[in-house]
Each structure stands twice: as structure tokens, then as C-alpha cells.
């Protein structure tokens, strides 16, 4: 065993990834199965001159990290199920004000209290549309302990670079699973900081419609004296009810994500080159799907796996190309067909798309997937 090899769980890898990415502020509230992230942050952050606070509720936690982010800190919160529902109002505020922050959702069985210690993937559409009003969002979905570490770093970098909230969508299995990992050293990790203004304060426009579409962001307390509001605002940040201003700002917000799509969209393909059956799976379910591909290949069935790592925005172009080359697509997921809807929308003109849905508190096993493949063949 390498001296740096460790046996750790996904939630720990996620917390360590956040710290490696420069997160120095965490606000949270205890909830299963994400609590370990808060516990680890409470222990580690003060050693690094960072701050941890356990707030009075989930709404306060989300609000608190936005306030902290405005002072220039990299910020994180983590929660599950009902906690994520409570955070939605403030997540919308972060979307509207373009405040960098990362929300870890260790998905558990829902709705409502559901199954606190059971895994699920039922929050996929909530991540996309959970807060009211149209808005862009980024959601990343790890399926291993190592990836909990690397994708949390990516999430923090995306949040800072694109001035946006970013979800890291674990599920209970990925969060609590223990795997051997050798995590990269600090000098091997790329860390991105938000762009800060260099202009004099009187020229500063916190929502400027410039070429990059990502306006620079001043830290509170540095003399820029800017205004942040959840109301629609003009380039200067002050409220505006002018339809042209609203239209221009909203178009910039949406275009920002389109412009950087090539950097934001992440996915992984396994055995897709000659695949006739394509599995589309993410999170812990992708692990079962990968094993299913291996089993099917030994049986001579040409199966492959497409694993979206960025689930929002959805990597549709690449999937559409793949769909044109395969006979059937199967989407196994621990819900009643949430990402399936997206896959179907993208692929239905090219090939037949079926779902394998399961909501009974248990993971989807590889043999359930192989059975489904044989059924549709």
C-alpha cells in the first residue's frame, strides 16, 4: 500500500476537497446522511483560520454562506433531503445575485422525511428547478470517493470562475461508502479564484454586460460600496423594473452558461465505441451499470456506459451523437425517471430509450440492469 493511501468515506473526501479548493467558510445544520461533512469542517477549518458555524436552521445556513462569500471567502454548505428543500429560497438568491457558493446534497430517500439512511437519486430535478423562477445552475455528480474529492474542487472552481451556486450531488451510498484513495498533493491541484475589480470604485459595475459575461466581484470592505439585491437589477446592482434592463441582464445570465459550456460539461464514456446497448447512469448507480457492462461484455453483448458527471447543464450534444450509433438506451436510476426525461428528450429521435427505476431504499444491483438489457434486446 502506498504511504499516502487512505481508507476514507465520500463525505470526508468531499470535505477535504473543499478545503483543498480553498473553502474557508462553512455554515450548516445537522442532517443525515450529510452530517459528517459539517463535523469534519468544524474540526479542520479553525486550524486553517477558517470559520465554521452551525446555524439555527438550513435557511440560515444557506443565507450565512452567501453573506460570507460576499466578503471574498470561498464557501460551502452541505445537507440532504428536507434540508435542501429549505435552502431553495436562498439558492435562488445566489443565482440572482451571482454569488459563488457550493451546496453539497447527499441525497437520501424522499419525499419528506423519507428514509434518512437510505440512498436515492430523487433530487435531480430539484437541483435543476428547486428554486422559483427561471435560472441557470450547475450540478456535478460523483460516483466514487476519489471523485467526491476532485469534483468538490471542480465545483468550488466553477462557483468562483462563473460566479454561480454549484451543487455537488452525492447520494447516500457515495457519501458513506469507504474506498482506498491516494489524494493528490496541493501542488497538483488547480485552484481558481474569482475575478476582482481593478477599476476605481466609481467605475465599478458589479453586473456589467462585458465580453466575458462574468462581471468582476468586489469583496465587501474594500471600498467599492456596492449594492446586492435579489430584485432584478441593472449593471450597477440597483433595482430596476425596466423591461429592457431585466431582459438584458437575464439574457447575460443565461448566455454566461452557454458560453462556457465546453468547460462546464463533464462526462465519462466506457466501452461506447462499438456499443449497441448504451447505459446512461450517474452517481452510485453508475457503479452498478459499469459492472453490468462488464458482465454483458463477457456474454458477448456489446454494452457501453455513458456517465454524465455534469448533470446540469445536461451534456446533450455528446449523448445525442452516441444515441445515433446505438440500438437501445437504458437509464437506470434510483427515482421514477428524472434524468430519464432528459435522456428521452435528447435521444428519442435517434433510438429507443427505456428506464429502470427503483425507489425501495435499496440500490440498483448489476444483475437488475443486465436483466433489463436482456429484456429490451
Amino acid at each position, binding site marked *: 500500500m502506498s504511504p499516502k493511501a487512505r481508507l476514507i468515506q465520500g463525505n470526508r473526501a468531499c470535505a477535504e476537497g473543499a478545503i483543498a479548493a480553498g473553502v474557508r467558510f462553512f455554515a450548516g445544520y445537522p442532517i443525515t446522511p450529510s452530517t459528517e461533512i459539517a463535523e469534519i469542517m468544524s474540526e479542520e477549518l*479553525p486550524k486553517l483560520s477558517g470559520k465554521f458555524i452551525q446555524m*439555527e436552521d438550513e435557511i440560515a445556513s444557506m*443565507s450565512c454562506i452567501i*453573506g*460570507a462569500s460576499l466578503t471574498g*471567502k470561498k464557501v460551502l454548505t452541505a445537507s440532504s433531503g428536507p434540508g435542501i428543500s429549505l435552502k431553495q429560497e436562498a439558492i435562488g438568491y445566489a443565482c440572482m445575485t451571482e454569488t459563488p457558493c457550493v451546496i453539497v446534497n447527499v441525497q437520501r430517500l424522499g419525499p419528506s422525511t423519507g428514509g434518512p439512511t437510505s440512498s436515492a437519486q430523487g433530487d435531480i430535478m430539484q437541483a435543476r428547478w428547486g428554486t422559483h423562477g427561471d435560472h441557470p445552475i450547475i450540478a456535478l455528480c460523483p460516483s466514487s470517493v476519489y471523485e467526491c474529492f476532485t469534483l468538490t474542487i471542480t465545483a468550488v472552481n466553477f462557483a468562483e470562475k462563473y460566479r454561480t451556486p454549484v451543487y455537488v450531488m452525492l447520494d447516500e451510498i457515495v457519501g458513506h461508502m469507504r474506498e482506498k484513495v491516494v489524494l493528490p498533493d496541493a501542488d497538483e491541484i488547480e485552484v481558481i479564484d474569482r475575478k476582482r475589480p481593478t477599476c476605481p470604485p466609481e467605475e465599478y459595475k458589479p453586473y456589467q454586460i462585458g465580453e466575458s459575461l462574468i462581471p468582476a466581484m468586489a469583496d465587501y*470592505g474594500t471600498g467599492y*460600496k456596492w449594492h446586492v439585491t435579489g430584485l432584478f437589477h441593472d449593471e450597477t446592482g440597483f433595482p430596476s423594473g425596466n423591461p429592457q434592463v431585466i431582459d438584458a441582464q437575464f439574457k447575460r445570465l443565461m448566455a454566461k452558461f452557454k458560453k462556457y459550456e465546453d468547460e462546464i460539461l463533464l462526462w465519462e464514456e466506457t466501452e461506447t465505441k462499438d456499443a449497441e446497448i448504451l447505459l446512461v447512469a450517474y452517481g452510485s448507480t453508475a457503479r452498478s451499470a459499469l459492472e453490468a457492462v462488464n458482465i454483458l461484455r463477457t456474454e458477448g453483448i456489446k454494452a457501453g456506459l455513458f456517465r454524465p458527471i455534469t448533470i446540469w447543464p445536461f451534456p446533450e450534444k455528446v449523448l445525442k451523437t452516441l444515441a445515433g450509433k446505438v440500438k437501445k438506451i437504458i437509464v437506470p436510476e434510483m427515482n421514477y425517471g428524472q434524468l430519464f426525461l432528459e435522456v428521452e428528450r435528447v435521444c428519442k429521435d435517434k433510438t429507443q430509450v427505456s428506464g429502470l427505476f427503483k425507489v425501495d431504499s435499496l440500490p440498483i444491483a448489476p444483475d437488475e440492469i443486465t436483466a433489463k438489457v436482456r429484456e429490451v434486446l
Partner: protein
Amino acid sequence: MRPELQKLFRMEKLPHIWCPGCGHGIITRAIGEAIAESDINLDKTVIVSGIGCSSRAPGYMNFDTLHTLHGRALAFATGVKLANPELNVFVITGDGDATAIGGNHFIHAARRNIDLNVILFNNNIYGMTGGQYSPLTPTGKMASTSPYGNPENNFDIPALAIAAGASYVARGTAFHDKLLIECIKEGIKNKGFSLIEAMSMCPTSYGRRNKMGNAADMLNDLKRIAVNINVAKKLPPEKLEGKFLIGKLHHKPYPEFTQEYDKLILKLQKGAE
């Protein structure tokens, strides 16, 4: 407005949106006066608010300003202050914002004794949505959602803040603006959670429904009903019936949250050496 005060306001954003006769303008000015008379770094001052009539005040004030969500101003402000304790953080909130939807954040921010200067504009009503009763609408009063008179009891905000752990609590009014300025200044000096309840008046949505006359009549009511705590100490209880107290109601300094956290950081780092 005198020049020293003008630099504290975004003069180009004035006049404000509040109705004629609203007390909020007087209170907002009092905050400016208190800041002008205090020795604080204006570049390192953040003003946070929630949602409602009072919460529009920071938009007129020339600082880093944060207009947040309904009820959540104290949670955002906690993040600002804890992330950078060098900043002077003010919170402007209203009676509905702070004590209904934000009630939980209110008691917990007070419990932490985090160094925030909270000015609660109390106009006894939800003004911006057109006059619904709030937790500070007195029992029996008319509101658009209490057309037969408010059947509920109202909070005593200073008592709530003291019980929850605020280290400085005072009350002023739109009439007693000099006293209000002094209270805010004392709140700024207090290292900890300072709560200043500023009694305002809403002739449009509260006074009108309760036949309280015009704005001047309502301002006179504040004068008539308020009793300075120093005077009240010498009065028999029957003389205080139907009155409310103004002035410094409570001041008991004790360790402040962000300073204690910084001590923890130092201790851990010394331990690691």
C-alpha cells in the same frame, strides 16, 4: 442634509420610496447621524436588510449594502461578520421581517452575542404588502387581515431580545430622534449583539385603518406614549399603564462570538506549533 451626512447617503437615489408621513426616513437619517458621530471606517461598514419597507433603507446608504430575503437579514449578516470580523455590520429590519418570518434568526443571533448593530423599524404593520397585522401589531388593532381587530398578542421586542441574550437593548422613536441617535451610537460601541427598536409610524396602512389621524398626530402619539426609562423609574406603576419605555433598557457586555472564535483559532494554531 449637512455635507458630513451627504457622503453617507447615495444622494442620487433620493427621494426615497416611502409614503408621505412615514417615520422610516427619520430613522434612516438617525442611523446616518449615529454613524457620522462614531469613529468607524466607512469603507469597512456593511448594511444588511431583509424585505419590507424598512429594508429598502440600505439602498439609499453609501456603504457595501446587502438587501436580502424576507426574514433572513440576520443570517446573511452573521455570515458577513463571522467571515470578516473587521467589518462593522448593521442590520436594518422591520417588525414582520425580524419577529415573524425571521424570529428564529433573531433569537439565535442574540444568543450568540455576535457583534451586529440591529435597528428594528417598528411600524406595527406589514406596510409594503398593504397593511396586514404583524407580531408587533397590538391586540385589537385593525389591519387588512384583522378586519375585526387583531385577535393575537404582540411581542415585547426588548424583553425578547434580552431573554435571548442581546448585550445591548434600547428603544427610540421617530419623535425622539436625538435619543434614537444616542442609542444607535451606544449600540455601535457595544461589542456584541445590539438591538435598537425604533418606533416608526405608518399613516397609510396602519394609522388610517385605526383612525389615528394624520402623520403629525401619530408622531405626537409617540411623544405622548413614550416614557424615558430614567423618568419611569421614579413613577408609580399606574402612571406607566398604556405607555412604553424609551432609552437604554439593557446593557450587559459579555464575550462576543466572532472574537471568541478568533481566540479558538489562535489557540489551535499555538497548539500546532
